[in-house]
């Protein structure tokens, strides 16, 4: 049985609570009265996923069954979400592999010859062959990759992009040409959080910079309250306009999946339990893990975390017309992640873990940590932000200025050059975005190496724009002072210090809310 999420009020019976901070976690004793938002417990997983996939493909929402859409001689393209979801990467077999195998089985039965598979990585880095193989599975990889029929989307390959048209609000819709010119485009998604999926899949995952900049900009992000809530997200409004336009041009068959909250495998599963319910074994593993982390050299610690594979269970598979499918998917996501919270607070506390969408098999640099904390976690609300306007956000992360040169070359320059000059998303956008987006070296690395596109760090900063606009103070507990200062924030060594620092803004006894994620949660703030 899984219990719904709830809001704990810290009292004198409450044990110290886990707060994630990068490649580690700490036990924090919160001030009495702090509200702690716990996500719902993991929903029971489907017992027969393959059966569910078959059912979804044969009884789709608002569409004919998949087999009837497949015919010999057609051009079929299968696009799928890249490595940025789910987090942490899923234990094999990946749900995408199971779905793609089911789809390909039907395609083979129908005699479809012209099939290509595209990782919809937009401006994300190209996946390595091993990463592609992890997602689609060995069978699919072996059948398609050597022939060059399984590949990463290239948003800079002018020859392989098609400008489909403009939306009614003059937004360019430009996506992968192969996908756009297919008789059927099948999109396989993993809907990890409420932001994912729907029309965010094809019009964004397969788009070019020219198309993306209409919604990936500071103005849109400041006005999206929040981007986790498609009803109130300008980002999603734009994507929906594009998606509807695309749907008129091309037949899209969307397959969406949802996962439960089983984020941490054994022996780290104590991190998923509510602390006061920890048994002797949980306490012992926690102590052992803490000591192990303290003892481990940085490299080993990094490996310990990044080798984690989540034992996710699948909670839903839906297929068919994009919007009909997404409505069902979203309901599943909300069922797993939504928690009701009464009222806003003065201070929001967030623990930023070791992993975000953009540092799988990589390092979480200061910009990604900011994006994770002030972007994804801050925006994990519906209704209104968890923290009041003019309040303070306290984040936990070491914020070490370490960058992965292979994956994040433009981030280093963004950090050294752009942030040194200004941290205002709008200013940065006006002054530097163009230069980074068109820098031939970044383009080269994006296309041939495994680098995020030159403009990507800007997007990360825009992701945090709403939070920076909304709150007065941002303090990082345990953060590297120089790196935090570079980003225009402040660093403290303990929660008490951080509260002291923000007391000028929120008073000496502020109301505090701590979102205890991961696993993922959405605070439904009334």
């Amino acid at each position, binding site marked *: 049985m899984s219990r719904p999420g709830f809001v704990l009020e810290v009292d004198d019976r409450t044990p110290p609570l886990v707060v994630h901070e990068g490649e580690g976690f700490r036990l924090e004793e919160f001030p009495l009265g702090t509200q702690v938002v716990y996500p719902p417990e993991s929903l029971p997983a489907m017992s027969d996923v393959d059966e569910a996939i078959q059912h979804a493909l044969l009884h789709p929402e608002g569409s004919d069954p998949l087999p009837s859409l497949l015919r010999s001689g057609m051009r079929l393209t299968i696009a799928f979400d890249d490595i940025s979801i789910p987090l942490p990467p899923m234990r094999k077999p990946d749900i995408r592999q199971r779905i793609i195998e089911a789809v390909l089985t039907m395609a083979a039965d129908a005699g479809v010859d012209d099939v290509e598979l595209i990782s919809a990585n937009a401006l994300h880095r190209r996946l390595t062959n091993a990463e592609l193989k992890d997602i689609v599975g060995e069978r699919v990889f072996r059948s398609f990759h050597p022939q060059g029929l399984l590949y990463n989307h290239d948003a800079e390959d002018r020859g392989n992009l098609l400008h489909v048209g403009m939306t009614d609000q003059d937004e360019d819709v430009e996506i992968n040409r192969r996908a756009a010119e297919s008789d059927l485009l099948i999109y396989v998604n993993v809907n990890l959080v409420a932001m994912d999926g729907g029309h965010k899949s094809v019009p964004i995952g397969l788009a070019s910079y020219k198309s993306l900049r209409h919604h990936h900009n500071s103005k849109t992000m400041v006005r999206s309250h929040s981007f986790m809530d498609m009803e109130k997200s300008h980002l999603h409004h734009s994507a929906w306009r594009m998606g509807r336009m695309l749907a008129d041009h091309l037949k899209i068959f969307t397959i969406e999946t949802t996962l439960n909250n089983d984020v941490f495998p054994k022996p780290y599963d104590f991190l998923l339990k509510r602390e006061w319910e920890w048994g002797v074994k949980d306490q012992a593993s926690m102590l052992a893990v803490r000591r192990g982390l303290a003892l481990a050299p940085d490299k080993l610690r990094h490996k310990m975390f990044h080798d984690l594979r989540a034992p996710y269970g699948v909670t839903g598979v839906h297929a068919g017309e994009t919007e009909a499918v997404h409505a069902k998917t979203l309901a599943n996501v909300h069922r797993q992640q939504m928690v009701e919270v009464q009222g806003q607070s003065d201070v929001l506390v967030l623990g930023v873990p070791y992993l975000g969408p953009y540092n799988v098999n990589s390092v979480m640099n200061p910009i990604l940590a900011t994006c994770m904390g002030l972007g994804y976690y801050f925006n994990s609300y519906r209704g209104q932000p968890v923290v009041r306007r003019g309040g303070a956000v306290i984040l936990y992360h070491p914020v070490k200025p370490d960058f992965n040169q292979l994956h994040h070359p433009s981030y280093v320059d963004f950090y050294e050059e752009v942030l040194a000059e200004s941290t205002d998303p709008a200013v940065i956008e006006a002054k530097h975005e163009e230069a980074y987006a068109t820098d031939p*070296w970044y383009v*080269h690395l994006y296309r041939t190496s495994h680098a995020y596109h030159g403009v990507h760090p800007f997007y990360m900063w825009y992701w945090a724009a709403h939070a920076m606009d909304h709150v007065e103070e941002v303090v990082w507990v345990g953060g590297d002072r120089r790196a935090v200062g570079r980003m225009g924030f402040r660093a403290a060594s303990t929660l008490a210090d951080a509260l002291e620092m923000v007391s000028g803004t929120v008073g000496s006894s502020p109301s505090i809310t701590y979102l205890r994620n991961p696993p993922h949660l959405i605070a439904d703030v009334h």
Partner: protein
Amino acid sequence: MILALEMFRSVPRMVAAKAVGGRIPGILSGPAAPLRLVSREQPAASRPGWARVRVRLSGICGSDLGALSGRTSLYFSGLVSMPFVPGHEVVGDLMDDCDDLPSGTRVVLDSVLTCAARGVEPCASCSAGATNRCDRITVGHLAPGLQTGFCADTGGGWSQVFIAHRSQLHAVPDDLTDEQAVLVEPLACAVHTALRARVNRGDHVLVSGAGSVGLLTTLALRELTPAGDITVVAKHAHQRDLARDFGATDVVVPDEALRGVRRSTRAFHVRGQLGRSYLLGGVDIAIDAVGSRKSVEQALHATKAGGRVVLSGMPAVADLSAAWFRELEVIGSYASASREPAADGRGSFDLAMELAAGGGVADVASGVVSYPLHRWREALDHAHSAGRLGAVKVTFDPRSSR
């Protein structure tokens, strides 16, 4: 009798300094320094055109430190005469009348000992006004010595009195302080460097190093040339601020230099083995103002094909592959000329004198520190880490006894 710091030939000390000086700079101002404080006869100004100069301030230059640590190439060993009194960045007062300059005039020194000073017929370079290229620096009635401060006969700035020839002297306007005036000589070199670089309108220039040479070169580039972006590689915070004041558009730290240049010039980055890292594309002109191997190579590696690299510091041995492969124009810039063809024949010192009167140099001058001669070990120590300690120029003030 006067006090003077004298550099003498000592093979063991030179070897010691060369062996460990790079790692333990302290040893250069300590036991291994081939330098001593002596009392000696005043040099006599017996020939026409020569006069005695009483030193007000005399700077410690990077090349002086190089000579003390034995890092200077043996190439120069034939161009100096031991023992000599170092010091070629000098401001002082004339003690004798010197042709048109009356006794008591405050002067700065153009240290090159040219045909005129040596009493020989002007060589081709001297006739053309390129006095820094004089070919006669080892002959004539003076002992060999490329400059005052490397010649056994003239004395040098690190003493109370030395002698100088009229051709070397430039009167200082009253509105310059001594501290500003002592910067005129390095500033003249910077002016020369900036003019040597032959900057076209809008050229992107990289200045590698932000010691006094780098900073003053930045100033000269901004004031005298139509350079576009100027990127300065600076290690220390106060250097970064000064570089910006002097007109740098972008300041980067050494380890970030290639990356910064790549970003602003949209070049491509190549990584060879063993940390060989360089750009394809890059700045139009790079000026090395340090002379270390790292700095020289950085300049070579950050310059676009067909670009120009100006060596302003005394260069160490460096990998010249880029110069060959990218067809770089590698040019030297030594001291200053009495007539600069790139500045309508005006002299570097005249231009430098004008720049020295500007607000920027006044700021730098306020950061000039001075030591009496007998505290030379401290002074050298300070000069070694001037950048870190926030000074642009360390000088001797032989008038002071404290």
